[in-house]
Every structure is written in structure tokens, then in C-alpha cells.
């Protein structure tokens, strides 16, 4: 993309010259322009280094440092020094240090013991919420795509859960799911939604689906609106059922937009923090991000290692998704802007 833009600038910007001058001058002028271009992008590179490069590099540097330990003689903290990969094995292999310098498997109650269970929690939340949100979101999008009386009202109303800040959502549902709350009185149960493992997980999935389905619905709706009505008319003339035209027309044509929406949601769900942190549920609902924040208070260097691990995991998931399902964020957005279909 950048090369075509540069090429266009070259065509229009080059002053007219005689053919003989052009031969030797062209290469030199080209080099000069390249140099100029290089100087012109330095500010953006510096900006990127400061806002993206610095945090990532400094997190990685910290991840290889030991957290401050206590000097038994003075009772003061001293710098931990170089840690090698012990911060990473702490999480991945659940190794905890012992007082004689060796390692032991982390006991329950140590955050290190919680890495794989929180990995399970994070992926479980991601898979279930993204599937539910896609199905419900599709359904909502199809409804909103029809012309009917009060359509704009429905489109606005459907957005309300998405517009409420997550912290407020979490607190609202905390009251709804409390022991004396409306959910328990409605079904005449006494389920401890905020304390028992599975009820808490289910509650969080319900809340997240309630909150985020509108977002999915809107992204899918944008895709649906690009499908021309004539395609459906032709299908009807050919005698296709509604079900058939959904599978052979709607789904394939909306696929690029759908994949991008699902990719966004997966990345979002893997980073989920605010909902479990505020709603509660203890370790059963502790996602990666919750674990990182808890570790921050115990030792920032081990927390850096954890967030580096999480970063790599999420990057891998996104990479696999793009590689094998062909979700192309940039191309789809451009195509949508031009009103093209893939």
C-alpha cells in the first residue's frame, strides 16, 4: 500500500527533464528522495518507539529480573538481580523458590499455582462467549436488517447494554445475582452466584453475552447491508427457500465482516479483566488479566513475565486465526469502504 502511494507521489511530483539528464539523475534523485522519506518518517518511528516499543521492551527486560527479596539481617528489601528464566518457569512449570535456593512446585494459595487454571478460565470464557455472541448477534443483525416499523428504535435500544460502562454492568448484575437478588427469587433457588465456582462462571458468561452481543450485531449488520437485494430476488425466482438462501447467499457474503468481528471479540475476550474483577467469583473466574493485576502487588517483575507470556499466547491465537480462517482486517475494511464484496 505504501509503495503505490509513494509511486503516485513520484509521478506527479517529478519535474520534467530532458531524456539525457534523466538517465544519470534519476538514480541520484531517487536516492535523495529515499533519504528524505527516511527523515520524514523519523518522527513517527520515535513516537512508535515511545508508545509501543518502550512498554513492550521494558516489560520483557523486567521479566528477566528477580523481584526484590528481603535481607534477613536488616529486614529491608534488596534488589533481586538477574533471574534468568525463573520468572517464566514460575508460571509455565509452576515452580516456586524455596528458602535454600531450590525450587518446589507452587502450593495452592500461591499465584504461580493458578496459571493453568486461569488459562482454562480465560479460554473457556472466550470460546463460550464468542460462540453465543456470534449466534445471537447474527440473529439480531438479521432482524435489524429488515425494513419494519420502528426499526431505528430497535437499533438504538439494542445498543444500550454496550453503552453501559462494564464496571457499572458488573455491579448491576452483582446485585441481580446476589443471594437475596432477583434471579434467586425468580427461580426460588439459593444459588451462590458470586461464590460457587460454576455458578459464578455461568453468571459471568451471561453478563458478557448480554453486554457484547450488540457489538457483534452491529458489525454483522454492517456486513449484511452490503449484500444487494437483487441476489435474494434472483434466489427467490429460482425457488430457493429462506433457509437455503441463508446458507448459500447470506453466510458466504457476510463471511469477511463476520470473521473480523469474531477476531476482535476473541482478542477482547482473552483480555477480559473488569467483569470478573468487579463481579467476583474468586479463583474460579480469575482470568489472565486478573492474575496479572494480583501479581503486580506481590512482585512487578514476575507480573511482567506473566504479561509477556499472555502477550505471546494472544498473539499466537490471533495469528492462527488470521492464517487459517483468512480474516483480513485491513482488506475487509477497505473493501467495505469501497462498497465491494469479496
Amino acid at each position, binding site marked *: 500500500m505504501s*509503495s503505490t502511494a509513494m509511486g503516485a507521489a513520484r509521478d506527479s511530483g517529478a519535474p520534467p527533464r530532458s531524456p539525457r539528464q534523466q538517465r544519470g539523475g534519476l538514480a541520484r534523485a531517487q536516492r535523495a528522495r*529515499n533519504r528524505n*522519506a*527516511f527523515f520524514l*518518517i*523519523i518522527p513517527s*518511528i*520515535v513516537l*512508535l*518507539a*515511545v508508545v509501543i*516499543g*518502550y512498554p*513492550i*521492551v*521494558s516489560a520483557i*527486560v*523486567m521479566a528477566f*529480573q*528477580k*523481584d*526484590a*527479596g*528481603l535481607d534477613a539481617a536488616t*529486614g*529491608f*528489601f534488596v*534488589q*533481586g538481580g538477574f533471574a534468568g528464566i*525463573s*520468572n517464566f518457569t*514460575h508460571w509455565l512449570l509452576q515452580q*516456586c*523458590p*524455596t*528458602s535454600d535456593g531450590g525450587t*518446589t512446585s*507452587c*502450593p*495452592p*494459595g*500461591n*499465584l*504461580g499455582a493458578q496459571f493453568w487454571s486461569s488459562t482454562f478460565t480465560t479460554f473457556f470464557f472466550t470460546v463460550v462467549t464468542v460462540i453465543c455472541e456470534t449466534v445471537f448477534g447474527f440473529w439480531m443483525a438479521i432482524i435489524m436488517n429488515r425494513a419494519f416499523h420502528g426499526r431505528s428504535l430497535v437499533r438504538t435500544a439494542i445498543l444500550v447494554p454496550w453503552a453501559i460502562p462494564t464496571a457499572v454492568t458488573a455491579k448491576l448484575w452483582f446485585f441481580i445475582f*446476589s*443471594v*437475596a437478588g432477583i434471579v434467586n427469587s425468580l427461580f426460588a433457588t*439459593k444459588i*451462590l*452466584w*458470586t*461464590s*460457587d465456582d460454576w455458578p459464578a462462571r455461568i453468571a459471568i458468561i451471561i453478563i458478557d453475552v448480554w453486554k457484547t452481543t450488540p457489538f457483534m450485531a452491529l458489525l454483522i449488520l454492517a456486513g449484511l447491508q452490503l449484500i444487494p437485494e437483487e441476489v435474494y430476488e434472483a434466489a427467490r425466482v429460482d425457488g430457493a427457500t429462506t433457509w437455503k438462501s441463508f446458507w448459500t447467499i447470506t453466510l458466504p457474503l457476510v463471511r469477511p465482516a463476520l470473521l473480523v468481528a469474531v477476531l476482535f471479540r476473541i482478542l477482547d475476550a482473552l483480555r477480559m479483566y473488569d467483569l470478573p474483577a468487579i463481579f*467476583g*467469583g*474468586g479463583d474460579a473466574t480469575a482470568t489472565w488479566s486478573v492474575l496479572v493485576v494480583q501479581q503486580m*502487588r*506481590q*512482585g512487578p517483575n*514476575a507480573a511482567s513475565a506473566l504479561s509477556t507470556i499472555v502477550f505471546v499466547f494472544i498473539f499466537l491465537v490471533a495469528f492462527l486465526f488470521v492464517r487459517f480462517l483468512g480474516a483480513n482486517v485491513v482488506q475487509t475494511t477497505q473493501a467495505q469502504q469501497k462498497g465491494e464484496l469479496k
Partner: protein
Amino acid sequence: MKASRRTRLAAGFALVSAAALALAGCSSGGGSNAQNQDTSGRGPITYVQGKDNNNLIRPIIAEWNKAHPDEKVTFKEQSDNADQQHDDLVQHFQAKDSGYDVVAVDVIWTAEFAAKGWLQPLTGDLKIDTSKMLKPTVEAGTYNGTLYTAPWVTDGGLLYYRTDLIKTPPKTWDEMMADCKIAKANNIGCYAGQYADYEGLTVNVAEAINTAGGTIVGKDGKTPTLDTPEAKKGLEMLVDAFKDGDIPKEALTYQEEQGRQAFEAGQLLFHRNWPYIYSLASTDGSSKVKGKFAVAPLPGLDGTGASSLGGHNIAVSAYSKHKATAVDFIKFMESEKIQREAVVKASNAPALASLYDDPELNKQLPYLSTLKTSIENAVPRPVSPFYPAITKAIEENSFAALKGEKTVDQALSDMQKAIKTAGSGS
């Protein structure tokens, strides 16, 4: 053309990483024990604490400023969230900010801040007189035998009970459990504290263990001592009460507020909570127990139980430039006049022992003399630089035990191991 683009890209990437590395290099390093040794500095200072809900601090500071025009105090008010207050203090200490002179410190942060070298030991020129303070509040401010934070406001647990159902409050845990038949006859829950998976659970479990004569960590603040029969007895009291239904199962979701609501709705015979709910339960429109409850000290094995200690102490930053003024200001905050003002205006439990016997204050706050008993018998939560890891170990394992997912023995041995790993670096 293609090749040159690649070189440019590579150059750009190299530049980005070089710049980032250079920046990263700046931040690492920096020891923490560099204290400003000058203890005689005088001049304007800043006082930092969490949200001043009752407009207590500003008038106090105005009074000080009137008397000390050359050593004026500025008030820096933090948010009302404890975690945010903690992180704000940590950031300013890490930056060696001399702008935070006197800081309010939650009792559980004392050891962490002291061990980082961020607090000025209150010794030598800066010594303050703590002989008139309640002893546990002084213990909570002491790390490694040195006083780092001065008692300011304190807090202890109280046993709220229903006077319409019980004539004399139980003195011991067994008496209370025996009274549970009254709760059953009235079809309400018997007892509840705070058992949700959060800091309040540590408070309640520590109370049970201390009441039974056990301790969580030894004198050094990091060696776990949970493998004792006393500690087992303590946790067992809670686990058995859950098993028998004497503590209702929904108490596993209770923080302070949910417990208060249950007590106010008349659903509990006994309730462990802080003094703050006294006035709410007597005045709330929705409270069904108005005039039908009273307070007693927490029940123990054969006498008063051991409450955990809450509250805030105040300390001088190691990076302050005006430490003499700072300590004078702390002494002013500890004076009887100001401590009394804090009780009257904000119902803050004072650190000064004599005020608890003041008839006038007792008229305003009927629970004051009971609270004194509670605090005199209180045990501070572990004064340990690894407190966040310790509280996590207690929370997670005791929560599993209360839910019946782990035996008491297993929970305690896991706690023991987890606290041990916390203390051995990493």
C-alpha cells in the same frame, strides 16, 4: 527498489528497538534504602490520606496552619478506594517524591513500606510517645522492633446481637453455638461474619485462629506458624459452624455490606462487623432491628475473642525534607483534642486509650466501651512485607475449606507452604 525498502524497514525497526531499549535502561536500577538523614528540617509539608468523607481533616489542618504560619500543611486527598491509595503511595515513594511528607498508611501496609525503606523510623529526634495509645495499634505500626507508623484511627470487630431474642450475649464461642437453637426456633440464621473471597475473609480467619490461641506468622513476620493444634482449632470452629448450618451458606458471599443488610433484615441472630454499622442499623429506614440489638466483644474460647485490627496509622516519608515539622504534625494529630474531634465528627475510633472511658463520648457512641475491650484484645494481621502474598494464601485456602472443598488439615498445610514460598524471594 524492493531491497532498499527492506533495508529501510530494517533500519526503522532497529531505530525503534534502540530507542526503546535506551528508554527501558533509564527506568531500571535504583536502590531503595537511601533515606534522607536530616531529621531537623522545618518548613511547609503535605499530608496525604484517602477521601475525607466527614470533612474532618481540613478544619484540623486549618487550625494547625493558624498556629504555624511558617510550617503550613497542605492536604492531598486520595480516592476512597484502598487499592488506589496503596498504589498512589507506592508510585510517589518509588519516585522518591519529597512532596509526600506525612502519609496515612493502612495498618496492613506498614511492613511493606518500612521494608522498602520508604518510611522514616520514629526514633531518636523523631520519637513520639505511644504510652497512652492502645497497645495493639502500636504493634501494628512496629516492624522489626522499630516504630514506623504512629497510631491515628483504629478499628476492631464487634459482635452484634439481637436483644429481643437473647438476654445476655455469649462470652465464648461454644456459648454462642449453643444459642443457635434460638435462631433455629425463630427460623433465622445464627451467626455470620465476612466470608466472601476477599480481604475480609483474612480478617475473619485470622480472628478465629488468634482467638483459638494460634498465630499466622512468627515474630519475624514471614515464617508461617499454621501447623499448630491451635490454628487448626481456630479454622475448625468456622468450618464446623458452616457444616452445621450455624453460619448460613450464603455468608460465603458476604462482604461487610451484605452481612449488614442481612442483619438489618432480621435474618441473623449474631453478626460480626465493624462499628460503622451501628448507626446505620439504628437509623436506616429499611432496618428491622432498630432498638432491638446491642454489641458485645467477640466471643473467645473462654473469654473475649481476638479481633483483627483495622484502621490507619500515620507515618513520615523517608524522602521528606521537613521531618521535624512532620513529626510535630503527627504529635498534633495524636493530641487528645484532635483525637476527640475525630470521634465526635467522624466516629473514628481513637488510638488514645483514655477517650474510650469519656462519659460524653460514650453517650454519643454507645458501643465505645465495648470497642475498647475489642481493640485491647485485638491482634494485628501479620505485620509482614509479604502481606499481599500471605493474605492471598489465607483467602484462597480457607475459602476452599469453608466451602467444604478441602479438609482443614489440607487447607492449613497449603497455607503454610504458600506463605513459606512467599517469604523465600521471587
